[in-house]
């Protein structure tokens, strides 16, 4: 009765100790464990014997997909894992070091996080991964590189020997070093002693001290680079590993014929992140589709695009502005000429300017970006020429009004209120200016047509404008109007991408739901295809 109670209570206390130990620095662990009594020791030995993993399952290998930093040690989870055991991985530089006792230890407490299934990037998604434990070992974290100490005159001389400092620089540094404030024993809360000390220095000395601080930072950087190099050397060496189980201070090693098994491995610099293979394939496939459709669109200009609501409204709005003898306003919002919606809106501008020139109404283009202004001027001029009215083009009507978001808003709003346009087109990239402009525009009574892919701003356009080209509708509209192959083709390419995504979504949910019902169906391949990983 008492024995069985001990079996239950013991692991619990051990667990608590482990939890404590995890919070404390490693060195204190030994102090926390009490020596076990003889009867407890025998039970523990029995438990330990149960807990020792199968010897054949112990393996060590290079951590895949990394820059030569880590080694993985893996072993099978014992079929009957007793409570309270911890796995320990002993790491030594050579096999012989184990005998000499020159090894370091890394502990792994059993938890779902320690299972191989927690790292699908290395072990996949199959159920087998739930039967494996693994430890990721970074040798440099175990056998840490020597830390460079603080800068001393001796270390400065060493830097000088390496040629980092010239003799005169060394002398200057040594002199400046003497100006450093000496660490004071007491600290007053109001002013730091360093600041006080510095007040006493002459300006020349102050300058020297500042120079010394810059130098110190530079030398620390060199130290850091040196340490990095050392870490690389440590990581790239071969290492030996032993595995054991620990219970309340007692350790049993995985052995074969009484001899602890030692496995060896060496971290290698890998050249490809295999976990990102799906990313590479998808990126390349999608890129190929886009490029292919652009080529198709160049050859066959009549690629189909569905009708978009709001396009007829453009002509209607211009017509109405003409009727009322009011100008047409156009703004690109805050994007630069590299922004996707700005490029799309430039195509629409070309169409609007052409129509306006035909109807003999004025177009005002207001910009926030100098380069967009220049491009807009070219486009409007060309549209007027194509409409046969090159003389009607006035470059002052396409202008930069401000280059700051809110002053731009104020300037455009001011013009809207004063000139009372008949139609307002807000197409491009918008931020908080969207509602400021469209609400002011609405108060002038103009027809407003907006188009943007700034999704956060769409709700405001939808509520205040007569028509809104939402997101990709803007690109589609611009492709539809301009028949530009690069836009048409890439739009078609994106549709292929969307179709693929829709299929994956529907099929994925069906498959995963089915897999949850069927035991042993892990869908490893589908997870590998979809899981984004950086390894």
């Amino acid at each position, binding site marked *: 009765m008492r024995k069985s109670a001990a079996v239950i209570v013991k692991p619990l206390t051990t667990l608590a100790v482990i939890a404590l130990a995890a919070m404390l620095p490693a060195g204190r662990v030994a102090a926390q464990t009490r020596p076990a009594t003889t009867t407890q020791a025998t039970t523990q030995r029995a438990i330990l014997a149960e807990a020792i993993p199968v010897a054949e399952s112990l393996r060590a290998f290079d951590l895949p*997909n*990394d*820059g*030569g930093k880590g080694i993985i040690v893996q072993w099978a989870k014992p079929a009957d894992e007793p409570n309270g055991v911890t796995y320990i991985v002993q790491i030594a530089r050579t096999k012989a070091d184990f005998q000499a006792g020159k090894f370091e230890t890394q502990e792994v407490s059993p938890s779902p996080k320690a299972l191989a299934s927690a790292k699908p990037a290395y072990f996949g998604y199959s159920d087998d991964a739930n039967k494996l434990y693994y430890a990721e070992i970074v040798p440099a974290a175990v056998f840490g590189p020597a830390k460079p100490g603080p800068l001393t005159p001796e270390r400065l001389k060493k830097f000088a020997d390496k040629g980092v400092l010239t003799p005169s620089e060394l002398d200057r540094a040594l002199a400046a070093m003497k100006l450093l404030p000496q660490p004071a024993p007491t600290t007053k809360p109001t002013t730091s002693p360093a600041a006080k000390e510095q007040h006493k220095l002459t300006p020349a000395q102050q300058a020297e001290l500042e120079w010394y601080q810059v130098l110190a930072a530079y030398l620390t950087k060199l130290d850091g680079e040196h340490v990095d190099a050392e870490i*690389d050397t440590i990581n790239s060496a071969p290492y030996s590993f032993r595995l054991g189980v620990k219970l309340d201070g007692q350790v049993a090693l995985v052995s074969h014929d009484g001899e602890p098994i030692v496995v060896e491995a060496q971290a290698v*610099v*890998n*050249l*490809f*992140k295999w976990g*990102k293979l799906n*990313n*590479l394939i998808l*990126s390349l496939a*999608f*890129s190929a589709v*886009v*490029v292919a459709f*652009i080529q198709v669109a160049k050859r066959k200009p009549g690629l189909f695009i569905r009708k978009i609501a709001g396009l007829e409204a453009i002509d209607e709005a211009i017509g109405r502005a003409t009727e009322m003898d009011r100008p047409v306003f156009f703004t690109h919002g805050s994007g630069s*000429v*590299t922004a*996707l919606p700005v*490029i799309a809106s*430039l195509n629409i501008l070309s169409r609007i300017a052409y129509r306006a020139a035909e109807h003999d109404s004025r177009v005002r283009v207001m910009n926030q970006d*100098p*380069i967009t202004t*220049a*491009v807009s001027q*070219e486009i409007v001029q060309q549209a007027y020429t194509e409409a046969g009215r090159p003389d009607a083009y006035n470059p002052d009507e396409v202008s*930069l009004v*401000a*280059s*700051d978001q*809110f002053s731009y*808003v*104020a300037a455009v709003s001011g013009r809207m209120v004063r000139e009372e346009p008949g139609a307002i087109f807000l197409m491009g990239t918008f931020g*908080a200016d969207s*509602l*400021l402009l469209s*609400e002011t525009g*609405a108060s002038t009574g103009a027809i407003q047509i907006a188009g943007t*892919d700034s*999704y956060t701003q769409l*709700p*405001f356009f*939808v*509520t*205040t404008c007569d028509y809104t080209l939402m*997101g*990709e509708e803007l*690109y589609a509209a611009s492709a539809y109007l301009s028949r530009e192959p*690069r836009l048409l083709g*890439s739009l078609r*390419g*994106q549709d292929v*991408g*969307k179709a693929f*995504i829709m299929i994956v979504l529907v099929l994925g949910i069906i498959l995963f739901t089915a897999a949850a019902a069927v035991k042993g169906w892990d869908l490893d391949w589908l997870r590998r295809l979809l899981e984004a990983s950086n*390894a």
Partner: protein
Amino acid sequence: MFLKRTLPLLIVFTIGSLAFVHDFIPHPLSGEFRSEMASWMMIIGGFGMFLGVYSLMHMHITRIRQKMAGWGYSVFVFIGAVGMIATGVYGDIVGVSKDDIDLFDWGYKYIQVPCGATIFSILAFFVASAAFRTFRAKNMAAGLLLGAAVIVMFGRVPICEAVGGWVFNDRQAIVNVANAIMNYPNLAVKRGLLLGIGLAAIAQSVRVLFGVERTYLGGAD
């Protein structure tokens, strides 16, 4: 032609492919390369900002010089800019101790901060008037827009918990509905848009890399 068009496009393709490829290589040197390129871009970006400062200054100086309509107001731009730069440079060269008044900070704190915050806050009025004017349940779509807006608006203020406790005997009742809107239909739409934006952005990058898209080069030749 080669120097003005072909070579830049070649650079785009080369540097873009390098950036792409190095994302898949775990080798430390590849990381070094990315890191070094990022610092280059940061420095170039610093020069790019200078471009913005210059062109705006230039614009206002031209306005004042040519006495364009409203040029008087441009003088204030000039006063603000020159004042800030002068006090800033003074602070850099002479140095301002903690007890002195740093006019540069003063200008920032009492002009830039209140102006920026105020102009932005005008949106509060606009949002209210837009909601008042346009939220009418004329059809299904408008009704959904209105309903979702009202529920979320209500579900995000503390008073709805009091009302929920009073009406439904569950303080979280209305909050839960608002959260459900955010977590399900809103999430669905935002995810759909995100996937669409993702595809569009990749397509754009592909066009840039292959030199199909070259608007950013500007100019006709």
